[in-house]
């Protein structure tokens, strides 16, 4: 191992185990299997202790030894360590003893968990000498690449489905990124980007930088364990697009067990999808270890990936941890957003509505027993998908600036309520 590679040892194919150098490459030449970073856990164990972690700044970089960069981070120093909120009111509403919200709606700087993966991918891209970064995105990733690239003067190209929510498009354009709208759904954007990535010498965060990028998601799981007082929650509910986040949450729990930072206890990881794009949860419910690709049709656009690259591994994690895959309709997604907002004061985007909606179903059916504890991973901010709830959020009542009119309004409404 080259000591200049930090705590990383190599890239390794998840399918056949062949090893590759730590370059900007993402698939095994032999079987196209995804490459994953291998760490020197023996060395990481020497410095990554609870005491060391506690002494470091409250950002995702406090788990530096298990994040795939060779030197100190150069992008996104302040990312992560979002609040873990004890959600007592929502817990009562859903009928569970103990419930927590991992609130990445307030992640820095672009209000979604994608800032975790992007700060890793861009820090690594700079180590490898890239000056242009790019991504294929359903919106949140584009926002994060655009913002984080701007902050350090990298050139950015982001490719998105042309029909994304206006909020997500403006949230990429404002940073001066080159935003390319593709007339097609995300899977088509991705296919095009795979071809573009092969042609241009750019760091595509979710293509040739994927092995590094994906590891950034682990920080969400590390934080959950630490913020719970160094324990693993009995249940974790995670929304699934490509399925990557779910697999990395599981990996984060496994790594902390391996390093002796947390006691091994039984836990289940449950995967949440929108019914309009549910290849993984459908396969899980049918007991299959492979999925059938679908053409997405859901308001949860950030989860609208019909050919989920990590679908196989997400299914495996659910099987291994005895977790469940479940999906909810667009109406249940809206209801989930409202529930979280009204009970906890947290406004999540549609993906958050999916997670809450699925948690509600799993608790109601006993798949998450009422006496257990659960963490819901809420990954993005509701201000980005205002359109989705615009009609269901309620309405304002307008009056003239007159006390009499206000009293009359209250009187009328109290009569309606009674």
């Amino acid at each position, binding site marked *: 191992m080259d000591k200049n590679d930090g705590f990383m040892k190599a890239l390794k194919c998840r399918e056949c185990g062949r090893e590759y150098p730590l370059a900007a490459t*993402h*698939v095994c030449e032999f*079987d*196209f299997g995804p490459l994953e970073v291998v760490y020197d856990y023996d060395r990481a164990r020497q410095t990554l202790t609870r005491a060391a972690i506690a002494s470091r700044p409250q950002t995702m970089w406090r788990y530096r030894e298990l994040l795939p960069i060779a030197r100190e981070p150069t992008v996104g120093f302040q990312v992560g360590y979002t609040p873990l909120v004890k959600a007592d009111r929502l817990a009562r509403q859903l009928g569970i003893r103990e419930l927590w919200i991992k609130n990445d709606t307030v992640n820095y700087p672009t209000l979604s968990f994608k800032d975790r993966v992007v700060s890793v991918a861009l820090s690594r891209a700079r180590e490898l000498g890239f000056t242009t970064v790019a991504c294929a995105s359903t919106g*949140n990733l584009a926002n994060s690449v655009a913002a984080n690239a701007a902050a350090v003067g990298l050139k950015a190209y982001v490719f998105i489905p042309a029909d994304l929510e206006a909020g997500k498009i403006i949230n990429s354009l404002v940073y001066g990124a080159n935003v390319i709208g593709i007339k097609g759904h995300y899977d088509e954007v991705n296919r095009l980007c795979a*071809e573009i990535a*092969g042609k241009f010498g750019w760091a595509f965060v979710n293509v040739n930088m994927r092995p590094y990028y994906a590891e950034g998601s682990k920080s969400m799981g590390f934080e959950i364990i630490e913020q719970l007082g160094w324990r693993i929650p009995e249940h974790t509910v995670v929304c699934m697009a490509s399925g990557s986040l779910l697999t990395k949450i599981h990996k984060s729990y496994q790594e902390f067990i391996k390093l002796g930072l947390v006691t091994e206890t039984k836990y289940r990881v449950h995967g949440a999808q929108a019914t309009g794009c549910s290849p993984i949860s459908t396969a899980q419910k049918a007991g299959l270890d492979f999925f059938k690709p679908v*053409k997405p049709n859901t308001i949860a656009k950030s989860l609208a990936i019909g050919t989920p690259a990590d679908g196989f591994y997400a299914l495996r994690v659910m099987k291994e941890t005895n977790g469940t895959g479940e999906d909810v309709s667009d109406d249940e997604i809206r209801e989930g957003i409202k529930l979280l907002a009204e009970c906890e004061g947290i406004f999540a985007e549609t993906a958050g509505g999916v997670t809450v909606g699925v948690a509600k179903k799993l608790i109601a059916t006993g798949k998450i027993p009422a006496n257990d504890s659960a963490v819901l991973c809420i990954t993005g901010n509701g201000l980005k998908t205002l359109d989705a709830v615009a009609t269901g959020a309620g309405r304002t009542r307008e009056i003239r600036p007159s006390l009499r009119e206000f009293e009359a309004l209250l009187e009328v409404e109290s009569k309606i309520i009674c």
Partner: protein
Amino acid sequence: MSAKIRIPTPLRKLTNNEEIVEVTADTVGGAIAELQTRFPGIKERLLDENGTVRRFVNVYVNEEDIRFLQNQQTPIKSGDEISIIPAIAGG
């Protein structure tokens, strides 16, 4: 007359760095067999031991995933474009 196959970067070592290869086969499966004749070793990269397309390989005919068509029986004709693309994460 022929269809064009775009060879992805990880496989170009096998095609002497050729990016586009023309084939005359009339199905996707036939095209893969034809590739194998010209570039020995390429088939086992694309298909597993049972002869099905590997799970991390996506094949498209004119931008449509063959899993929405007829998989390896999907017909191809002159002028069609076939892309072979590794699965990609993201969001």
